[in-house]
């Protein structure tokens, strides 16, 4: 091959490669978009999933702490979520048929979170618009989409350390812990607050769609408990109970065994098994 021919073939090949990639990206743009963002990915899984009775929307506390299937729920939670993102997810989840209940996490990290809902890109090329979907760590999501029916949403984005993975492989021993969450009573007087109003509005929106909303404050380890219990957060939950008019289940002050946690806010496989079972009882009772 002469240098001229070699260059021509390379340039043409490169051009064809780029055009082909752009055409493919356009053909599979919704899938690429889903792969590009954790929230979009979970929503796409939910869209492809068989009808589900409940959705769980929260941060990594819900994502690590709850199995979807035993709760007859789909876990839409994503790490580092925020109130704004939770509301955005709820708006999209409400369109699902067969949905009866929305379980919303209420925790200080969620209330303080700054994550924004994913914004559509205005780049002219699909390859550029959906470029994050091509990142190596995101590509497996593309492979997961055709099998959406097998997932309940809690399989992805866990703080899964090697130890936890091994523990799950070995099977979780029956958990003897008997604690129950507090059903938070309404506050004696109403103090208006932006976050309370936002959560109450979500409950209202759920009611308009014929859904029951349950607010859940997830468990926390000893350090977080010391910060939260009896403080502003507890007051906040009481306000929410009064204003939202829906059940508020508080697990955050429960003294769970230390081996229920893999970090100060994230439940271990053992903790997850217990929290899921306990919440199932509570939700069944509410419904």
């Amino acid at each position, binding site marked *: 091959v002469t240098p001229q021919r*070699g260059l021509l073939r390379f*340039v043409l090949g490169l051009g064809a490669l780029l055009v082909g990639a752009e055409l493919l990206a356009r053909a599979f743009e919704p899938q690429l978009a889903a792969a590009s963002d954790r929230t979009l990915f979970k929503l796409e899984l939910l869209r492809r999933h068989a009808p589900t009775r409940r959705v769980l929307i929260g941060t990594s506390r819900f994502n690590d702490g709850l199995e979807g299937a035993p709760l007859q729920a789909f876990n839409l939670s994503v790490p580092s979520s925020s109130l704004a993102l939770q509301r955005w997810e709820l708006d999209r989840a409400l369109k699902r048929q067969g949905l009866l209940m929305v379980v919303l996490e209420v925790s200080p990290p969620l209330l303080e979170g700054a994550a924004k809902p994913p914004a559509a890109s205005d780049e002219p090329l699909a390859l550029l618009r959906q470029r994050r979907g091509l990142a190596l760590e995101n590509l497996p999501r593309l492979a997961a989409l055709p099998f959406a029916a097998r997932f309940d949403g809690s399989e992805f984005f866990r703080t899964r350390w090697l130890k936890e993975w091994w523990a799950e492989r070995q099977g979780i021993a029956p958990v003897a812990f008997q604690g129950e969450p507090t059903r938070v009573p309404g506050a004696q007087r109403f103090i208006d607050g932006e976050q309370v109003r936002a959560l109450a509005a979500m409950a209202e929106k759920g009611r308009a769609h014929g859904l029951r909303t349950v607010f859940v404050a997830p468990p926390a380890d000893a350090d977080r408990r010391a910060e939260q219990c009896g403080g502003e957060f507890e007051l906040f939950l009481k306000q929410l109970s009064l204003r939202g008019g829906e059940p508020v289940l508080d697990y955050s002050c429960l003294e769970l065994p230390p081996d229920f946690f893999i970090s100060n806010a994230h439940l271990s496989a053992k903790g997850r098994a217990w929290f899921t079972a306990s919440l199932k009882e509570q939700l069944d009772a509410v419904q």
Partner: protein
Amino acid sequence: MLFNSAPFAALLAATLVAYWSTRVLVVRLAALLVASFTFYAWRHWPSLFLLLATIGFNYVLGRLLESKRSGRLLAFGIAVNLSALGWFKYSAFVAANVQALLSTLGVAVSIPQPPAWLPLGISFFTFQVIAYLVDVYRGELKAERSLLVFAVFKSFFAQLVAGPIVRGRDMLPQLKEVQRFDAAAAHRGLFLLIAGLFLKSAVADVIGQFAQAAFAAPEQQSTLGAWLGLYAFSAQLLADFWGYSTMAIGAGLLFGLRLPKNFDTPYVSRRLQEFWRRWHITLGAWFRDYLYLPLGGNRRRALFNVFFVMAVAGLWHGAGWTFVLWGVLHGLWLVLERLFASKPTESRWRAAVERLLVFHGVALLWVLFNAKTLEIALRYYGRLLLPPWDFGGPVPEVLAIGLLGFALLHRGLDRLMEDGRFAAMPLKAQLLLCAGMLLLLLGYGGAKLDFIYFVF
């Protein structure tokens, strides 16, 4: 204008069309000059006047030096060029230190605030033109007669702001010749552009985010986190600067111009001296030819010369005590190496250990290079080397894959960049490699950070 931006791609394409659509040398050079000035003025147009002034001044001085070989004239020329560099790059540093010294002595003086703007690439084009003046003075190079050729030599956009530092004797003859389109060179140039962009956007910018986070809050790092941050910065710095140089060489080849190689897998060096023959090669050669050898080289005061050159190299990299200390420590290391190091042996084990030691020594000194202040550097060293040692905690997947991938593959990529290597591969392999790099570029290359060496 950044190499990793759409305006640069448009400028490069337009200049290539203008350049190759004519065989008239003046028109070609004019196209290169317009492109170079556009490139330089894009970020901060007033800097263009500085560039124009140095072109005019050094062009005239070169002609004068040729007709009258005067040491004083050369000294004057070097002084004027270094004054511009000193004013823009070092005046704030000097002023701050003088002020601090005076206030320590109880003298209350308010020193006027020097300029906040550092013209891009001033360290590079100053060194390039000093080399030109010295070569003309020594009679090793004829002063350039054509102002247009000289202006393009002084401002060629591919290497203007971060090197490679080209020599007049290599570059001027190429510019004065009507280049014929060389398909093999263009083929390699295209690959180098893609590879350089990949190194910058898909490696340096991605890994660099972890380094940035680690250096922003050293005290919050575990021992493992601090070491990962250091490895990340070491990889980022190499990928960033190597990526820029690679793109510069690639862009040059598209115009039929050959720029010198600037990196040769420096992290596999077995001696620090070898490291400096592989890292920023054109700067090392500049210091050797225009400072080390004039000081006496190996013939007299060799150890002092090595030490002094490295201290100056430290200061060249930045106006700050961290850079000075970085250079001084490199100088000390080189001196000790000359005094005590035995000759490298053939033993593979020993070679591996030496490489590991030299890499970690260089990496540890990068802390000074990256830390904004000595205090931050000391805090970072504390987390690296002092208790409490904590090697637990998660390792981000992207960082682990990025570091491992870069460590394992960068030598192979370097070999592929050699003349003719890439084009000799089957077309399918060429496209597969480019597809892989483009995939990573698209997936990760959104940060569009400045090249680190732009500010030197």
